[in-house]
């Protein structure tokens, strides 16, 4: 039996987009309404997938397979395991909330705006469910274009610079990654005599370490730029700062995760020897640690509210990559959970900046102060977001960071020691931000008449807050979903590390089931 649920999840936003294009541009209300409905549908159709996902099963589920370019061995092959399931859910939820939060903040060229978001939604979901490498790459690049426009059209004053920087940077990484993909493809053809991009098949490859390392670095450039890891992070603050609120939210919540997801889904299982190579692991962990501390340091001196949040992303993503390259269950599972957490908490922080930006049209921290007097609810929401980001226990951030730290600790105690410092600084810059903006006397007269959150803004924040708390209090379902896939990856990496260039290693049983249809 083959269900088409994944295709439905994938193409619902596209269908929404096509309908949207039919709505005349003058009818702004209808456009907004329909965009929201389409995004909500996108979320709703993903719910049955979550419900019917069988976490006890190994391998991929809801697999769909069709030939796409048979002469090149490219397939339309999609499926999810626990890792991608969570990512897809993150995408559909954040996508909806991002669109919903734009209701009043976007006032010109709305049709294009929502079209871009829906298109982006397709790309992002596609990235997370592709099991064919070329399909993955297609979606990967597809995502760039809408984001370019979102930043470039609806962004801040330096939007064009930020947009092209984002595009160039990630594209350069992407094409190099493509070369890595193609190398695998040829290796496979050499060893097995046929061409395929199917990931499960490529895992059967048996490559010499040297070649694996080359491919690893090619992948690394693609993924690390996306994450972004130090020192490839400089596009991020610009893009984040200049993007419109919803754009920043999606960028932080989902787009960056494509990089970390890439590491987990591709670098580790496909190149187990290279990924567990001592030098490579050390380099990556060091870069992650630098990212953690560096992001935090730079956050401390930011004068722009949004830029501060943007740099904090660098720090948080440092945790995620550190967890991945701890190469153990704790590290990777924690990393994935932390990715979701980062989506939630940084997403919230960006939304919070957006709320105030919509009211005051500035993001200079020094313009604010004492906002808690006039916007008490806003202050509470901000506090929760801040604490979630700073990793306060019982909120989501802690679960992820703690698990990552444990993973890092198991891998190397020094890493954990440095990473822990990141937690301290995380608290420092966030609290300071909070103090400068929310606390104290109202120093700027312009802030006196600001309105507190309206119902629409509440409606955006409440689900996120609830989500944050549920992960913080009861993260077990997430760990359960992740247990098998992560264990598989860890097993694969360690097995090949112990048995250099062992012939056959564990391959998730994706193919067998799907072929039955």
């Amino acid at each position, binding site marked *: 039996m083959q269900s088409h649920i994944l295709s439905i999840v994938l193409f619902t936003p596209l269908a929404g987009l096509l309908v949207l294009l039919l709505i005349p541009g003058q009818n702004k209300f209808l456009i907004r309404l329909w965009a929201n409905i389409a995004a909500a549908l996108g979320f709703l159709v993903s719910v049955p997938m979550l419900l019917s996902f069988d976490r006890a099963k190994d391998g991929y589920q809801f697999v769909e397979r069709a030939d796409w370019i048979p002469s090149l061995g490219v397939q339309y092959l999609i499926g999810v395991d626990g890792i991608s399931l969570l990512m897809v859910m993150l995408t559909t939820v954040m996508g909806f909330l991002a669109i919903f939060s734009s209701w009043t903040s976007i006032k010109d060229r709305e049709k294009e705006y929502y079209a871009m978001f829906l298109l982006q939604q397709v790309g992002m979901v596609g990235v997370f469910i592709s099991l064919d490498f070329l399909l993955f790459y297609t979606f990967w690049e597809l995502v760039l274009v809408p984001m370019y426009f979102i930043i470039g059209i609806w962004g801040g004053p330096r939007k064009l610079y930020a947009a092209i920087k984002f595009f160039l940077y990630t594209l350069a990484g992407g094409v190099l990654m493509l070369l890595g993909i193609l190398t695998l493809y040829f290796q496979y053809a050499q060893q097995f005599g046929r061409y395929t991009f199917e990931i499960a098949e490529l895992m059967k490859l048996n490559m010499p370490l040297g070649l694996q390392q080359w491919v690893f670095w090619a992948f690394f450039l693609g993924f690390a730029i996306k994450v972004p890891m130090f020192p490839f*992070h*400089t596009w991020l603050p610009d893009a984040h700062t200049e993007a419109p609120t919803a754009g920043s939210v999606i960028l932080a919540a989902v787009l960056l995760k494509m990089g970390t997801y890439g590491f987990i889904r591709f670098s580790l299982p496909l190149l187990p020897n290279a990924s567990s190579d001592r030098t490579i692991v050390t380099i990556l962990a060091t870069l992650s640690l630098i990212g953690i501390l560096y992001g935090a340091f730079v956050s401390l*001196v930011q004068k722009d509210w949004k830029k501060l949040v943007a740099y904090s992303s660098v720090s948080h993503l440092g945790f995620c990559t550190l967890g991945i390259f701890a190469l153990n269950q704790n590290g990777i599972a924690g990393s994935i959970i932390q990715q979701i957490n980062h989506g939630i908490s940084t997403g919230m922080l960006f939304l919070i900046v957006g709320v105030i930006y919509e009211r005051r049209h500035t993001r200079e921290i020094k313009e604010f102060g004492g906002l808690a007097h006039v916007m008490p609810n806003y202050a509470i929401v901000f506090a929760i977001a801040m604490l979630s980001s700073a990793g306060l226990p019982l909120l989501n951030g802690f*679960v992820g960071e703690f*698990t990552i730290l*444990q993973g890092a600790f*198991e891998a190397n105690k020094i890493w954990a020691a440095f990473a822990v410092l990141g937690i301290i600084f995380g*608290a420092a810059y966030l609290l300071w931000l909070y103090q400068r903006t929310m606390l*104290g006397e109202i120093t700027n007269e312009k802030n006196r008449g600001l309105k507190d959150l309206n119902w629409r803004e509440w409606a955006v924040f409440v689900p996120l807050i609830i989500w944050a708390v549920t992960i913080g209090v009861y993260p077990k379902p997430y760990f359960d979903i992740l247990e098998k896939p992560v264990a598989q990856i860890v097993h694969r990496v360690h097995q090949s590390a112990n048995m250099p260039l062992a012939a056959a290693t564990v391959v998730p049983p994706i193919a067998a089931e799907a072929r039955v249809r």
Partner: protein
Amino acid sequence: MNFLDLIWLIPLVPLFGAAVMLFFGRRLSKAAISIICPGAVGVSLLLSIAAVIQLAGLKEKIHQVTLFPWLPLMKVDMAYLLDPLSSVMILVVTGIGFLIHVYSVGYMGHEGGYYRFFGYLNLFVFFMLTLVLANSYPLLFVGWEGVGLCSYLLIGFYFNRKSAGDAGKKAFIVNRIGDAGFILGMFFLYQLTDSLKFTDVNEALRSARFGVEHSFGLLSLTALLLFVGATGKSAQIPLYVWLPDAMEGPTPVSALIHAATMVTAGVYMVARSNALFQLTPETSFIIAGVGAATSIFAASIALVQTDIKKVLAYSTVSQLGYMFVAAGVGAYWVAVFHLFTHAFFKALLFLGAGSVIHAMSGEQDMNLMGGLKNKIPITFRTMFIASLAIAGIPGLAGFFSKDEIIWQTHASPLGSNFFTVVGLITAAMTAFYMWRLMFLTFYGEGRMDEKTRHHLHESPKTMTVPLMVLAAGSVLVGWLGTPKIFGLPEFFRGFEGWLEPVFEPVKALASEGAEQPEHAFEWFMMGVSVVIAIGGIYVAKYMYTKLRRDQRPSGGMLYPVLLNKWYVDEVYDLIFIRGLSLGGGGLFAKFDREVVDGGVNGTAWTTRFVSTVSMWWDTWIVDGLVNLSAFTVRALSFPVRFLQTGLLQSYALAFVIGLLAIFGYYWVR
């Protein structure tokens, strides 16, 4: 009804109160708030009492309730544990918490953000109860961080004051530094014992797998890291700096959080981890050393402070030092005992101070007080009792616990006479500064201005009743832990017995510690401490009632040093600024220090410097590299365009040169 299975409700009720306050508080009337929040803590108190009574009836005095799994990868559950140690703690937290809630109804009656205050307070109680009821380190850490947060929120309650915000931030960040150590400690513990549940950890550590570690090894490192966490939370050297600043918060907060409960979390945690610390005598020695140093250091500062709350704050730091001395010498029950008694009289002192400040229309400088004895009699009497208690006058709570500590420093196998001497000196200082406070505040002539004098009034019932209850406690609770040599019935030594199951001695130490106490010497010590206490009080009385201001000894060189708190804050700054000006000398290289300082001041110069440097790096180097591509593109584009002159012959020339190059390739190939 089995209250033991309902212990999870104990923290949850205040959480419910907090949630109601934060989300709906603004729409509730003051009266409703005044009922809900103290009521929630009251319910918790009743539940706690019921549960403790039931626990007492159990043979195995331990009960765990598992709610649901939390961090599956580390086998950590949302589970609560009630044993003698936590039962003491929950009683302190809910009991004193309840009183302070009631007190706050009166004290905060005129303040804005009433609902917010109670919301935070209830939230604090929730986290504190989670901390003490947790059955595992991570869950303890939940409470640990949570109380830090509430402390931050409550210190910064008057958030329109910048100093309040700064103080809150400082508290949170210094605590986080400790937490960093604590987290690492937990990881080591997990590595050692493969579990983070208290029961499992203790069982493992007491098993044959581990022996006493006499050199500095993994166990010591683990213990030390946990202790770093404790120094942060319990304000020990070098992380004590946040606590005095924390007095920016409302006085009930100082009483509850910064005297009675939260700051003792470190002591609780060390006591909880006694199995570990017992295995590492070196660490224990360090703990005792840090505790002793902190106690005398803070006491010395308290001698000269003029702000009434600051005196109490340093006093708290000093008393916490005592507790760590006790824990360090292996007398865990004594540490908890002192924690217990201290909670009563220090809470009372703070509340009393609050009442004084209330009466003084917000004035906190003792130099502007005086003669309040008759104006606010209830406050005076209750504070009088508390001051006697803390000074160590026999019969009151403080006497028993402090005396036991001093005795244990001598008697315990881990002890040292050095600690005894320090303890005695500190005791003298304590008696002196407390009574200095009393004399400056309540005796002599009033030094306040007319307007304030006019307003002087005793506090309302909601405030005075808790004072009285606490005063009663300050007298009575000490009798639960009378010295053996008193030879009183077992009930009066109940405290040690009650905690016995928790502090099961490790085999190695048990044999050493079997030496017979010398009764005569113990009596002698007791006498010395009493004399010292009375001496301290007398000196204070002499100086502050008999002598005029100008007649009092100035303290010479020492006075400004003490007044400026040994210049520690300044030294922290100075080290780094000088380090920087020397171009990153050895001190600057100590990243750890940098972090401490950067964290302490949040905005500190160092951090700013480092961040600014990284900012430059970002803007000029990294960005430069990226933009280099754009720049290179343009730079390369120039010659290409330059050649495209529009002149046909230059095009043909390029053609010929291309051909020449191809030909040339053939010949140089």
